[in-house]
């Protein structure tokens, strides 16, 4: 099942994306949930599955305006330097602990949205990332149990402003520019998405392929990351973890292929979805 948040006719809600169109689910489940986060909090994905069985879509997909899959997540954690081949190519050592940082939701635009070209930098880069969406509160969970706490997966561009990433010892300023990343288009539930340790990760800029990797190359797997983060914080339904990006980002080219206004960025995660947005 693919679940998305969107607005239609000015009303915000959520529903299921099917091959034939969108089935609206706002307020239609027995708990009258108004947001996808509430659906995850109530742990009623099975009810949603039943609710859409044999139901005709309400509207075509191109009639809805996508929002972030969870418009109001409590937390978004990101992982840097997590693809083995890319780390070795850059001449770094394979890390023994993951590099973790956080982003606020407002730094992402939804599917078909427009990213803001940073006003004070030309070093605007993309990072295609498979993204975990938490379904149940998770604290001190083992790696073996970790995927039981995952509702599904989505697609991210962990868009980065490289020169601001290097201003100070922490990357946060370069990772928290307003509307500098992408998230969506939907959450593909875990039962349908397949193995998170074997998903293709690709990106394109204006149709030119830039990145191609597979999550089988992750140093720290989705299951490890859920377990690791749950050591220090309770992961809550709707929280997201972007799991790092393979080789092929703009800064890796000589000269760097920075994003420019008008560029179209696309990211695809196999079994999850394809996310697209422009640079404004």
């Amino acid at each position: 099942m693919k679940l998305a948040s969107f607005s239609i006719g000015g009303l915000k809600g959520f529903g299921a994306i099917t091959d034939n169109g969108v089935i609206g689910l706002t307020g239609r489940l027995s708990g009258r949930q108004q947001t996808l986060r509430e659906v995850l909090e109530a742990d009623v994905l099975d009810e949603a599955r039943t609710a859409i069985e044999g139901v005709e879509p309400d509207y075509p997909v191109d009639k809805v305006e996508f929002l972030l899959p969870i418009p109001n997540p409590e937390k978004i954690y990101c992982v840097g330097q997590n693809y083995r081949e890319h780390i070795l190519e850059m001449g770094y050592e394979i890390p023994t602990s993951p590099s973790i940082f956080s982003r606020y939701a407002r730094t992402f635009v939804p599917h078909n949205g427009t990213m803001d070209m940073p006003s004070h930098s030309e070093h605007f880069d993309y990072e295609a990332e498979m993204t975990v969406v938490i379904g149940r509160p998770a604290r001190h969970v083992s790696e073996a149990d970790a995927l039981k706490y995952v509702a599904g997966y989505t697609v991210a561009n962990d868009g980065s402003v490289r020169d601001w990433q290097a201003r100070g010892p922490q990357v946060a300023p370069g990772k928290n520019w307003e509307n500098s990343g992408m998230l969506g288009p939907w959450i593909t539930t875990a039962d349908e998405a397949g193995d998170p340790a074997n998903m293709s990760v690709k990106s394109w800029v204006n149709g030119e392929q830039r990145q191609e990797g597979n999550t089988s190359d992750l140093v720290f797997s989705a299951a490890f990351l859920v377990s690791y983060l749950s050591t220090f914080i309770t992961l809550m339904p709707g929280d997201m973890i972007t799991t790092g990006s393979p080789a092929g980002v703009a800064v890796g080219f000589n000269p760097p292929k920075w994003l420019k206004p008008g560029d179209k960025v696309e990211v695809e995660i196999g079994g999850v979805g394809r996310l697209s947005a422009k640079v404004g």
Partner: protein
Amino acid sequence: MKLISYRHQGREAYGVVKDGGIVDMSARMDHPSLKQAIAGLSINEMEKLAAAADPDVSLDAIEYMFPITTPEKIFCIGRNYRAYHEVLEDGGPKWPSIFPRFASGFAPHGEAILRPSVSEQLDYEGEIGVIIGKPGRHIPEENALDYVAGYTIINEGSVRDWQTKGTQNCPGKNFHRSGGIGPWMVTRDEIADLDALQIKTSVDGDSRQDGGSDMMIFKIPFVISHISQFTWLEPGDMIATGSPGGSAIESDPPKWLKPGESISINIEPIGTLTNPIAAE
């Protein structure tokens, strides 16, 4: 004027601190929270209402909440104080160290800060917390204080060994309830000179930090201006502005916080933030 968010007999409310009690503003105004009251530019109105009323409830009868119960963003500044007479190498850092935290990493005044089960290295950092009062982006340094609603006290608690596990300090700065915020905020007009504040931290009465805000390297107007280059600052957003010397890690052996201890951070004219330490 001191503004507070609190829970009384199970009901969440906000108000003005007066004569050891609180004049309940949520009963007198339409704004559902202090964040919205501030965003609605209602500080002057609250002052008038409070002047004409007697306290509705005693401070002894309430549970404290974060002054802003649900801040969207909490940016923290690291390594932002020099020691007295210290000359910084090469004129000091060019850029501040900035990292975000989520509210779940903090406890309100009076509630326990949790010593993690996986680490003994729980440390404290007494800090001036800035609370933003109106939305701003690309704020010039010279106007930056116009965007401040007031100030609170932040214990930017840190788990030191987890701060250095990866390239980013995020894990050590995001432990569940490892810091404190409160007990309330004072409005901007109460502090005439931001360089004349004294930050005093004590653990079970034993003085640990006693530093003046005149030793701040990146001053509050600069920090507000700098952060607003990459993101909108919104009403209720907070900035923890860095801590003077005297953290536990600086003692030999380090004086890590232990369950059963009580930590207080005093910054006049704001007040004193006190939290017991408990085992997770």
